[in-house]
């Protein structure tokens, strides 16, 4: 870090004296990211007898995986062979109206716990036991995995709009089959859960969102220093499987790659693992190795949420007609691709601009600013995503009751809207307010831990605060308008 700053080519007035001063200052700053000796990890929920018994049980997480896999099978069957109209299809309702909207909420509350009980993970484990070759993860995947996840996420969103995946049960069914096939290939040839760690687009999303989560699994490094068990928490034992997401609790400082499967808890002979409850977004305040691809994913998701919202607004059809009249382009895929590219680029471009402005004052280059402070926007990102998803859950939730009820012979005569537009908007604005506060606080925390001088802090805080304000205002305006229903 300090070497990068010292050899920075874009600063012509650099002198050995200034470099030494910068080096000394950043080294001091870096030290502030370390946890101080004796600093409490937080309240350990494994001290609760019930939680401890559940996490240490050999039935965990299998006892949850079995019923979830059964529901997943039902969803897949309905999507492929059920009613062709999304409005009547229980698979579509369960997948896109119930599960998808609740997912970000689960990430915020419990981190990547969903990944521990995900049916795809269970399938991968099963295939591995059956025919697994257990080849090591290719270096290519380790290096570019998150970029692949970024590209997959954008492709799926684009394909949804162009081919109508959500509106078509058949399209959703094909998507599930493709994912299933990818999981089978990964499970058959590669170690552990390579797909979940390096390829799953939901894994990328959950990795980012779980940083704001309230649960953190960590090891007591003082006990680990005396451990003679040859990293049983990472490699597993004769009776307990290895960490599926290739995380080593002793050095772990992020929840992005921990799915709380409890393998390390069961394998650790010293009981050095604890699961602590922490303040939401706290992990983002202490990030030591920010990655540009993760910041990019956060911005891409922000763009995706904005586009999803815009396409559901009443003015979207008028905008299409206007583009049609102005440019003469009649193909929807062409128009949408252009809108999509612009929509995703806007948050990325704004973050780049803010990073460029901040780099003039905080002595770090644009890329480092982009990587580091992109994380500060994750709380707002999660909030906007949740606000969007709450509309689907509450305005279309009745379709889950009606379609699943119809599956079992019942009849639901109520409306699809579970609550009115007013309460939904209040909820949406509450989420956005929390996101705004979370992002501003995270920005402040990162800035104050990173920089000591008020000048550097101010010159960093200002551009990124403006960016957070612009993105919040954009979301506030979008959520003011009534949205079209999918179901």
């Amino acid at each position: 870090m300090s070497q990068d700053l010292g050899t920075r080519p874009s600063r012509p007035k650099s002198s050995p004296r200034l470099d030494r001063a910068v080096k000394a200052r950043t080294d001091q700053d870096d030290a502030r990211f370390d946890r101080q000796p004796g600093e409490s990890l937080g309240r350990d929920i494994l001290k609760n007898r019930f939680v401890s018994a559940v996490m240490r049980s050999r039935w965990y997480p299998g006892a949850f995986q079995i019923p979830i896999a059964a529901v997943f099978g039902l969803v897949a069957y309905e999507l492929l062979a059920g009613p062709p109209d999304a409005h009547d299809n229980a698979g579509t309702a369960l997948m896109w109206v119930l599960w998808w909207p609740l997912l970000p909420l689960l990430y915020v509350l419990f981190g990547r716990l969903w990944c521990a009980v995900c049916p795809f993970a269970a399938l991968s484990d099963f295939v591995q036991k059956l025919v697994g070759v257990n080849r090591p993860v290719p270096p290519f995947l380790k290096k570019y995995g998150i970029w692949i996840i970024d590209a997959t996420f954008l492709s799926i969103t684009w394909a949804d709009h162009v081919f109508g995946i959500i509106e078509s049960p058949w399209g959703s069914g094909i998507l599930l089959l493709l994912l299933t096939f990818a999981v089978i290939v990964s499970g058959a040839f590669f170690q552990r859960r390579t797909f979940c760690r390096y390829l799953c687009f939901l894994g990328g999303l959950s990795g980012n969102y779980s940083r704001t989560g309230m649960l953190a699994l960590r090891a007591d490094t003082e006990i680990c220093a005396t451990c003679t068990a040859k990293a049983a928490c990472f490699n597993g034992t004769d009776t307990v499987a290895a960490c599926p997401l290739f995380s080593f609790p002793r050095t772990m400082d992020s929840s992005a790659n921990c799915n709380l499967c409890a393998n390390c808890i069961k394998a650790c002979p010293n009981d050095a693992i604890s699961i602590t409850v922490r303040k939401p977004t706290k992990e983002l305040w202490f990030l030591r190795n920010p990655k540009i691809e993760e910041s990019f994913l956060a911005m891409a998701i922000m763009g995706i949420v904005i586009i999803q919202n815009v396409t559901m607004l009443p003015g979207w059809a008028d905008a299409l007609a206007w583009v049609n009249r102005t440019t003469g382009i009649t193909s929807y895929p062409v128009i949408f691709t252009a809108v999509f590219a612009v929509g995703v680029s806007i948050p990325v471009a704004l973050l780049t601009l803010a990073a460029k402005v901040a780099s003039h004052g905080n002595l770090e280059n644009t890329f480092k600013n982009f990587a580091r402070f992109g994380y500060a926007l994750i709380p707002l990102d999660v909030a906007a995503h949740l606000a969007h998803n709450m509309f689907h859950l509450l305005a279309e939730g009745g379709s889950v009751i009606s379609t699943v009820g119809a599956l079992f012979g019942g009849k639901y005569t109520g409306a699809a809207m579970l609550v009115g537009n007013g309460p939904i908007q209040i909820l949406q604005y509450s989420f956005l307010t929390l996101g705004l506060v979370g992002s501003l606080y995270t920005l402040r925390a990162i800035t104050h831990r990173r920089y000591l001088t008020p000048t550097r802090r101010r010159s960093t805080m200002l551009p990124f605060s403006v960016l957070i304000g612009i993105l919040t205002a954009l979301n506030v305006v979008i959520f003011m308008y009534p949205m079209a229903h999918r179901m």
Partner: protein
Amino acid sequence: MSRTEDRSAKSNYSRSASEALLLRRIRAASVGATVAGIAVVGSLMLTSHQEASAATPLMVSVVPVSVGSDDPTPPANPGDMPQDMPGMDMSGSSPAPTDVPAMPQDMPGMDMGGSSPAPKAPAQMSPDMPGMDMSGSSSGAAVHRPLAPVLGTFGGGTAAVLLAAGMMRRKDLDLSLAKKATRIAGRAKK
């Protein structure tokens, strides 16, 4: 008491009889809940399927084949139809519809002359624009679902992957056994 001692005390506790009892209860409860859930869901699904299959023949027998289709030809044997079915009286004996004098001729939507042109998409409108299909046909991915070829491709691909992985695993196993044998043979020579 230090943290390490705390941990060891907890470790001892984890092996205690009360925790084992709790674990047994959790196991029994989870297995019981899963079995009960499967039983309830399965019976509900079976019941609803039976109801649906019992209702289907009745519906097919009552609704004529051409209802709802674009085919303007009348049913081949109108005599088979129930006489009291609403709107299905084709005998001609009922009173013929007469003009209602009070009804204004220019009432919106009441033009029965058939002279007005049918709505059609403007020339500049893209036919593949979502929600803009005015052809009346319901073709598309939602209706046309080639299940057999898709499942066949998926199943075939999966089988090929599993087979290839199985063969590679066998080969790896053979290689490791051969290495082991060589090592043992080398030791025996010494």
